[in-house]
């Protein structure tokens, strides 16, 4: 059940929203889509779902094109949240669930289970407009997963939620993956992607600038972060060979270095200068990679 995008391009008039995108999204994993606003994430999702047609290229799921005959196996949480404000939660989910081919009685059992899990069982007969935004989002999430989809597309699932609810939703996403759902999700919050995804793709102006397994991406990036907290002036470190950049903090600084070997040279350089409180070598964060890669393609 692999989702495959082959040289997919989407043009709106003269504007190219997605440019020659080729991806392979493995089965039963969580795949992260990263990108700044307007990078083409939502357009890509809409093309995967068949809501809009690609100008060029081919999208297939399990070697078949996605159309309405498969919609019962696909779940979608759109970026723009939307539910009928005047309908009760139960009416709402029953309608959307039936449109995904479920029976009414099954929907109610599932819905009650989900509401329990999200600790809001009393919302069953409340109208959507009476709920807070975060709680509406939970209902929206339920509407996307109620029919146990094989492919779940989540467009910015955690935006606008408080940390407690983010954790709750993250756990739900992880559980869905465990039960065999392939999940594609987009975010511009790097830490969520780092925590959840095995594979990811960073988009910039419709083009993938980084693409692959998370560990692989980090390893091939090469550069590491070095945190130093010390009681003396650290300015001179940025002139050492192998140091790419320096970011200063009140207690010390963060160095970006070309490889881990450089860290030892830095250590020697500060050895006899005074008291060192912290000296820590860290893997680059996705954030560093994103900023660097996105920055590069700007130039």
């Amino acid at each position, binding site marked *: 059940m692999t989702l495959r995008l082959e040289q997919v391009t989407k043009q*709106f*008039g003269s504007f190219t929203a997605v440019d020659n995108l080729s991806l392979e999204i493995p089965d039963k994993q969580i795949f992260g889509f990263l990108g700044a606003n307007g990078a083409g994430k939502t357009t890509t999702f*809409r093309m995967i*779902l068949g*809501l*809009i*047609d*690609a*100008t*060029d290229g081919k999208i297939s799921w399990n070697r078949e094109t996605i159309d*309405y005959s498969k*919609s019962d196996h*696909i779940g*979608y949480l*759109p970026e*723009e*949240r*939307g*539910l*009928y*404000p*005047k*309908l009760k939660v139960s*009416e709402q989910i029953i*309608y*959307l669930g*039936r*449109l*995904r*081919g479920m029976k009414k009685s099954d929907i109610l059992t599932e819905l009650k289970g989900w509401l329990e899990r999200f600790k809001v069982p009393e919302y069953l007969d409340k109208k959507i407009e009476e709920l807070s935004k975060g709680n509406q989002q939970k209902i929206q999430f339920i*509407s*996307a997963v109620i029919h146990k989809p094989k492919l779940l597309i989540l467009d910015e699932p955690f935006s606008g939620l408080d940390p407690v609810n983010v954790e709750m939703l993250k756990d739900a996403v992880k559980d869905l993956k465990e039960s065999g759902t392939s999940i594609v999700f987009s975010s511009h919050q790097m830490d969520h992607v780092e925590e959840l995804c095995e594979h990811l793709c960073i988009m910039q102006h419709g083009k993938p600038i980084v693409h692959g397994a998370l560990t692989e991406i980090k390893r091939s990036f090469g550069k590491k972060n070095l945190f130093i907290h010390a009681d003396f002036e650290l300015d001179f470190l940025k002139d050492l060979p192998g140091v790419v950049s320096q970011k200063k903090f009140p207690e010390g600084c963060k160095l970006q270095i070309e490889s881990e070997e450089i860290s030892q040279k830095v250590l020697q350089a500060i050895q006899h200068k005074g008291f060192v409180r912290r000296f820590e070598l860290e893997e680059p964060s996705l954030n560093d990679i994103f900023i660097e890669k996105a920055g590069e393609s700007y130039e």
Partner: protein
Amino acid sequence: MNKFWIVLAHTYWTRFKSKSFIITTAIFLLFIIGIANIQSIIELFDRDNEPDVVAVIDETDSIYSVLSDSIEQMDNNFILESYEGSLQEAEKKVQSETYVGVLKITYNENDLPVGSYHTNQLTNTSISTILKNQLQQIKVAMATNQAGVDQAVIESIYAPVNFDTVPIESSDGTTAKTEEELSGARGLVYAMLFLLYMTVLTYGNMIAMDVANEKSSRVMEILISSSSPVSQMFAKISGIALLGLTQIATFIIAGYVLIKQKQDELVGGMFAFFGLSDIQISTFVYAVVFFLLGYLLYATLSAMLGSLVSRMEDVQQIMMPVILLVVIAFMVSIFGLNAPDNSFITITSYIPFFTPMVMFLRVGMLDIPFWEVGLGIGIMIVTITIFAIIGARIYRGGVLMYGRSSSLKDFKQAMQLSKKE
């Protein structure tokens, strides 16, 4: 196709259960009950109304009794009363509202009656007109009497002429519609025009609102990811159509029950006016066909336009052209009721937006060959199909479009968004 029914049922039930639907239906029912009981209501208000009194100062001494008799026979809402005092006194009593007016009758130099009516209600001409007409008759009788003409001669002069309109049989054995058939058809055409007008305005608007509502609440994107926009559009149109039929059926049943109850009062009244009993079955069939086609055409148009706006506030604005079309169609057909064979009417009956009203009017009022009706229906079906195809594409693209403006540019953009390669 299964999802078509889910959307249809959802559209129908959520609307059916909504407060606004229940309230409008209730108001209309009250209105119908009111209309059916209009006679009792009018009587209720009239009962405590004393008849108006007109004082008569008769200087001829002979005319008052004749005039009073004939006024009484006419059963008007006023009576005459002989007054012995002077005109000034009587006028004072008019001021104090004892009388509505004073009629002074004198003879002129030819011994013929002359009347002058003094009142402070110059706007209310009905009493003075009746008095004048009655006095005129008395004057004619007296004048002819003076001239020595026999009463029988007078009557034969004033008797109405015998005049019949006879339809000529044409070569294929059919005759032009008789006067009864025509007035019957006119009634049905009136009813149908009004029904279509109301339906298109109300339910067309409802469809556009529904679509715009789903867009503004952004639920649309989930909906179109689970079932095709085209089947959704038609499910919506059919759902609202069913809702409309439910509402209309409620009114018709209520009306029918009331008419049954009030049969004695109403026979010869409303029924004779509309003459529903003289209509051919085919006219009824055409009424249903044109009604459905008309609804479908305007509903498709509304759904298409509704998908172009993203806020409820813009619905009215974008529905304007549709409303204008319906109003024009209505005006044309009102004109056509009096001149159904005018060539302007003939031409407009082939313009699809006007066909359901104008062509039906021609079918009802004239004897037009079947091919003309068939052509009209054909043109409509083709137009509906074209609108459905364009509408479906615009709908597909339009529902993903969120912008402020609502113009021709949007049509293009929506078409582009939905472009099939």
